[in-house]
């Protein structure tokens, strides 16, 4: 179905309003680049509880994802690199046992979401073979090389940041802020994108669209 374009002061709040308790939410960004700050803040205010959040990191400082964690509404983080110099919010919650953590190698994290979006039921990856992160997982030698079986990682919602959208919801990104956005958009049942700019349909070159509108449910124009 085609995308809704939401504008105005409470657009982000309206976009996340139906995220229920217990949802798995994929949140784009690698560090600050590509982090959909307005959507994350709206989710923090929305108050849905018992969330599972997937992001490469686990928040910086006291803003964005860190502020969401601080609400206490996140039950579990799935990420590749939670520990950072300024991840004190996460560190405190984790050490005090109030936040569950699943650490996934960054490439397996991306590939698991790619598999979810692509209808793949599981895949054999060489990453993490022989390490503690492969413990308890099925291993197999294929053509003389060792692999671990990983499963898709679906989201109920994806919150991503893109640079520009057209009115159908086709997205383009900017530089390394692209990162997880296009993959997460394919892996969630409902994808909400915040963008800096919405142009008329037909104004984006069909050759350069990175996320086709089929993957985008709501677009929030931020200023």
């Amino acid at each position: 179905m085609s995308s809704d374009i939401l504008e105005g002061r409470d657009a982000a709040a309206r976009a996340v309003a139906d995220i229920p308790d217990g949802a798995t939410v994929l949140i784009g960004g690698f560090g600050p680049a590509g982090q959909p700050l307005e959507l994350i803040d709206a989710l923090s205010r929305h108050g849905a509880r018992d969330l599972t959040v997937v992001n490469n990191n686990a928040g910086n400082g006291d803003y964005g994802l860190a502020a969401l964690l601080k609400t206490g509404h996140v039950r579990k983080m799935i990420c590749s690199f939670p520990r950072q110099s300024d991840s004190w919010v996460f560190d405190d919650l984790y050490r005090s046992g109030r936040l569950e953590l699943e650490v996934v190698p960054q490439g397996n994290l991306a590939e698991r979401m790619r598999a979810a979006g692509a209808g793949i039921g599981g895949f054999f990856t060489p990453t993490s073979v022989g390490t503690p992160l492969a413990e308890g997982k099925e291993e197999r030698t294929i053509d003389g090389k060792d692999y671990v079986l990983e499963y898709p990682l679906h989201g109920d919602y994806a919150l991503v940041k893109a640079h520009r959208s057209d009115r159908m919801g086709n997205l383009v990104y900017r530089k390394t802020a692209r990162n997880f956005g296009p993959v997460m958009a394919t892996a969630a049942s409902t994808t909400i994108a915040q963008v800096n700019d919405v142009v008329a349909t037909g104004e984006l070159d069909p050759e350069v669209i990175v996320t086709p509108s089929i993957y985008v449910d709501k677009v929030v124009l931020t200023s």
Partner: protein
Amino acid sequence: MSSPLEKTPLSKDGIAKLIADDIPTGSFVNLGIGQPTLVADHLDLERGVVLHTENGMLGMGRAAVGDEIDPDLINAGKVPVVETPGASYFHHADSFAMMRGGHLDVCVLGAFQVSVTGDLANWHTGAADAIPAVGGAMDLAMGAKDTYVMMTLFSKDGSAKLVEKCTYPLTGVACVSRVYTDHGVFEITPDGVRARSTYGATLDELRERTGLDLLD
């Protein structure tokens, strides 16, 4: 059955129009090669239905004519087409990820046979000397949220193509949700096959000719 008895079987165009009318506003749709492409002629573009073609495009338009013809812009049947506003291009792995991942709302396929449990046979007659060629049929059949079949209800020799169990090699298992034919529209449900409407035959006549326990 909510619709009244129609006196004559539907034409191909009649079937195509029925399917087009049933496709929800704003859907992403793949029309298989052959007869299903007729559905495009009956889609009201104002309703924002977006066509996918397996060879890497969303927002496919009508067949190209004259100067519009561009050998780099073709559909799955290798026919030159035009692009519509909001179109996008992507490579084959992304295109089939889109299908397989369940992102298309509807796909419409032709068929040799459909079983009462939604099994589809449309790629191979099973003849010993036939050259097998499957293309994207198996991916489409399994991938879309709803797979509609468009076919005649009976083959040239009079045998039903809606069957208890397919005898031709399968394309996909339990993948068809609705079957549009010249003699009726059939829903594949957990309880069995429900006839939504019939054309040029009564439901009892179709039960007799198909040998199936069609639900009302």
